[in-house]
Structure formats: C-alpha cells, structure tokens
C-alpha cells in the first residue's frame, strides 16, 4: 500500500504513514505526537481533527462527538480515518484535564 505524507498544522509535524493504518495508529506507530489518543474506536471523541486538505476513507463514528455537519465539513475522528492521499489536519479534540484537579474543583464548587 502507498505511503502518504501527514501534516499536523498545529505543530508543523509531518510524517509518512501507510494507508492501511488509520491516522491515529499511523501517528502512534511512529512514536509521533500531536493528536490526542483515546478509545481508538470512534466512541470517545478525544482525537477529533479537521482535515484541511487531502482525501480519506472513513468508518462510523459516534454522533455524540461528530455531527452530520461536522462530518460534511471534514471534522472527524482521527481513529476512523484512513488516508487515500497526502493529508493536512488541524487538531480539535483534547484529553480531559487531570482528574484530581478537575474533580477537586467540581467538589469544591458543590
């Protein structure tokens, strides 16, 4: 299978990955960073990205995190996207904050 050049706009990082790996796997397999990694199954929404240019194959992802409009605007989950050309993307998703601080804050508010 072909190799595609993936560019993460936020960090300027770029790397080449195989088309049979989804974007998140491709990044992780090279030890690269930039896209936050969560469930890797399209369910949790942590790895949401916007594909700025390039084409891809996609599979079902949770509507709780990707609306139909999102999907039409190429705002998708990196773990459910397989590149079919070179791709440039922006990172939209993020990992929840550190649990202790977040929960501590919540508790002190209540």
């Amino acid at each position, binding site marked *: 299978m072909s190799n595609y050049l993936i560019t993460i706009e936020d960090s300027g990082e770029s790397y080449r990955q195989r088309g049979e790996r989804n974007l998140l796997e491709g990044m992780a397999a090279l030890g690269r960073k930039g896209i936050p990694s969560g469930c890797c199954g399209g369910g949790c929404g942590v790895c949401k990205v916007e594909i700025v240019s390039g084409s891809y194959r996609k599979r079902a*992802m949770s509507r709780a995190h990707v609306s139909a409009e999102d999907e039409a605007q190429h705002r998708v989950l990196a773990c459910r996207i397989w590149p079919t050309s070179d791709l440039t993307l922006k990172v939209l998703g993020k990992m929840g904050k550190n649990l202790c601080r977040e*929960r501590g804050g919540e508790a002190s508010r209540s």
Partner: protein
Amino acid sequence: MALTGVLRPGHVQMRVLDLEESVKFYRDVVGLVETGRDKQGRVYFKTWDERDHNSFIIRQAATAGLDFYAFKVADKATLDKFDADLRAYGLKTERIAAGDLLETGERVRFQIPTGHLIELYAEKTDVGNGLSYLNPEAWTGLAEKGIAPIRMDHILLYGPDIDGARKIFEDVLGFYLVEHVVLEDDKTDLAIWLSCSTKAHDLAFVRHPEPGKVHHVAFQLESWERVLRAADIMAMNKVNIDIGPTRHGITRGTTIYAFDPSGNRFETYCGGYASYPDWQPIKWTMDEVGRGIFYHNRKLNDTFLTVVT
C-alpha cells in the same frame, strides 16, 4: 438463606457503531457465546460458563456507550418488593414486559442520579454451560476459545451524583461499600466500590460532570495466567489496550483494560478478595490514588481516567 434480595449483575446492553464488526469481536476475540438475535436487531451473548441465556447484549446505534445495566434478584416476590421500595423511596420505576429481552422475565427499570438506567429482573432461562448438572466435566472446548471469560462481573459508571446513587443501592437494594477514594477535602468521594455479594465489587462509580457515562464492563478470568493470555490475544488481534496487564491496589484485582471496536472500554479481570456485609470499607486518599488504581507503576494515566463512552 444467606444471599437474598439482589443476587448478582445479570445483563448489560451496550451500543456499538458497527454491529457485525462488534459481533465478530465479542465472539471471536473476547470469546463470548452468541445465544440469539431479536427483532430489534440486538445480539445476545453469554460467557461460556454462564448458565443463564444472556449477560451481554449489543445493538447498533449512532453513539457508543451504555443502554442499561441489570441485576438478577432472588425471585418474583423480591422483584415486586424492590419495585415498591424504590417507588416509596421516591424513584419512578417502569415495568418492561417479559420477553422484551430474549429469554428474560419482566424487568423493573429506574434511573439513578448519575443518569444511568438500572434494571432488576428475577427470571432468565437457564440454557446451561454445556456441562451436565449430573457428574459434570470441569470445562468445555469453549473455555479455550478467545479470551473466554467466566462471567460478566461488574461495571464502572461515571456520572455526577454518586452519593445519591450510593444511597439507593445501600438503603433500598442492600449493597454495601467496600472501598472508596476520598478527595482532598476528606469528605467527598471521588470513587466508590459497592458489593451486593461477597465479591469486592459488583458495581462502581466515579464522580464525573457528564451523566450516564460508562468507563468499563468487566469480565472475570480464572487466573493471572489467563490475564496474560488475554493480553496475547489482544495483541494478535490489534485490540487497543488502554493499560495492563497490571494489578489494582483497590480490590487487588489483576487486570487489562482495552477498547472494543466502538471505543467502549472493557476489562479482563482476575482475583480480588472476598468481602462480607460486616466489611469495614477501605479508604484511599488522593495522594495515594495512583497506587490504588495501578499498584505497580503507581501513576494515574490520562486515558484511563478521562476517556469514557
């Protein structure tokens, strides 16, 4: 009789993004036994050693996550009593007719303050585990197929009012607190582990701002050796492992956490001590919670703590 009231976790229904991919995963990788499909398109599974018709049900949906979690109670009179007790406590309950879930009797459903739907039921058809009730063998060939857990063991739910949920399980349904993690204020529970039996946990909660979230469904394995074997099977099948194999300080269980093809986390778990209703709960403080959750590396892991469906 010793165990009365709520007997054990009975069934859980999960949403998946691609049904056939998930059926293949739970059947071939996890090694559950498919026991049926209904008109709504739901697929039913049990572990090889469970006798009741189903314990794990999946349906295709646009989002991943939990539909409901259910406990089996001793008999129909107990079911009616709990229904009345829950209403007297101020909860709304709903009766779901026998047969709505395959081979399952009438269910009593209610929503707890963490946003989750919990069910009670008394009857589910005993289809057996393939071993005779008279002079049986020790296991069948299915015990070696895939990860092949023994039972659907417990669930960890994430939601806001875990104190309200705890009160219902303790005051109405007879559960007791086994362990808890307390925040820096030394009052507020971050997490609680509850038992309705002699297991270290049948149900656990973590305080979390979004309601109705699920952290994992756990499947019990026989030994640490089997946990390591499960890790090999996950590697062979490119399953996304969250963490493990490792051990918990809390409950002492040995464990792997991994994700199904829709991103629902599941646990393959072994061990844990036996507790009884006279158990003095174990308390963990935030400065030691890393060791409580992951006993070996004693560090919290961002994915484990924050990724839920």
